[in-house]
């Protein structure tokens, strides 16, 4: 039994079934942050704001010369985090050493949108959404005009 082409076919069907316009668009992402500017930073958490409409994670990042910059990383609202297994002050807290992957603000500076946090023990969790889910997507929401 040749499974490989079948698995590809099933995956294709699932992709078609799942395809839909991003219906829970994250409005901040595309306006404020640039998906062409990925950043991965490691540092010690100085503060976490479990607030609406966005949580914020602040980490102190030390550069090669020992200079410390505090980076802010924007994330999901706390209710969204709690529903995917985050526990306030347990999963992540001030003093923890973490690596954060995300995308920098268009205006530059030590501000980014978080996607994934890697904890000291190597486990990872998503702190924020993927890019392109809130700035309009790949094309404007307009039906093509009817062919005449």
């Amino acid at each position, binding site marked *: *039994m040749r499974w490989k082409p*079948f698995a590809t076919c*099933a995956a294709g*069907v*699932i992709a*078609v*079934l*799942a*395809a*839909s*316009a*991003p*219906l*829970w*668009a*994250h*409005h*901040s992402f*595309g*306006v*404020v942050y640039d998906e062409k500017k990925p950043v991965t930073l490691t540092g010690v958490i100085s503060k976490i*704001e479990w*607030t*609406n*409409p*966005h949580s*914020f994670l602040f980490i102190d990042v030390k550069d090669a010369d020992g200079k410390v910059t505090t980076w802010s990383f924007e994330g*999901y*609202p706390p*209710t*969204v985090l*709690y*529903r*995917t*297994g985050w526990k306030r002050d347990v999963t992540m807290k001030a003093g923890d050493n973490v690596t954060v992957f995300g995308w920098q603000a*268009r*205006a530059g500076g030590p501000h980014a949108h978080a996607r994934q946090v890697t904890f000291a023990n190597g486990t990872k969790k*998503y702190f924020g*959404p*993927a890019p*392109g*889910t*809130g*700035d*309009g*997507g790949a*094309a*404007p*929401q*307009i*039906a093509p*005009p009817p062919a005449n």
Partner: protein
Amino acid sequence: MRKLFVMAAMVATAAAMAAALPATLAAQETHATANIPRAADGHPDLTGVWQGGSNRIGTWEDTNSGDGPLGESGPITPYAVKGPQPKPPYQAWAAAKVVEEYNKRGIDEPMVKCLPPGVPRMTLMGLFPMQIVQTPKTIVMLFEAFHVFRIIPIGPDVKHPDDLDPSYMGDSIGHWEGDTLVVDVTGFNDKTWLSGVGTIHSEKLHVVEKFTRVDENTIVYEDTVEDPEVLTGPWTRHGTIMLRPGTRIREYECAENNVDEQRYQDLKKDPSLYERKPPDAPK
């Protein structure tokens, strides 16, 4: 004898393939015998906590822990809608406005001010749960996001009030057509977006939503949007709304730390920072 063996092998393979395919093909059989929870008056009972814009079966964590852009995970309902849904058929002048906003990446997003998203946008906002409480004469929809609620009087003779002020969420009334709850919404203001970035509408917006609970886990959903000011004709989409056992509505107070309003004002001083540039900027 050999022919028989080959045929048996083919049947076994076909059966194995059918068993492994997503269960869409089995949907026709399961629909007729599905266990639909019903209220005392015989209508399907929509009471529960739900996630709009999803087609996955299971708890919130099981169905929203994927690695893809929407985070979807878990088994797909047999009632999942296939393929992308149509986009709104805008009149040329309105389409130009949608494109203009698209090229600004949605910097005029009304939700930035923590304002209600309107209908049908709220129904399909899958990031947050909604709770439906069904009684014979009133159905209430409670949305975690923005504290929005919809109170829907139900009955064959229910009419919209004649003293409506334009509102973000409009005025909803409902009636049953067989097992389908049909909700008629009017009385909108023009301050929300229908769906994606820049999808403007006028106060003449009229929405009809249909909710059909087809089994324990799935509401089959359809919405039709009409707006003679901005659209060339009706715009209909299909989707599913999924039960989320164990989820409760939590508090989402958008105003407590909303930095976006100020950030967007600051960004507007230099549009070159965020505006789409050709070839990414359609005309």
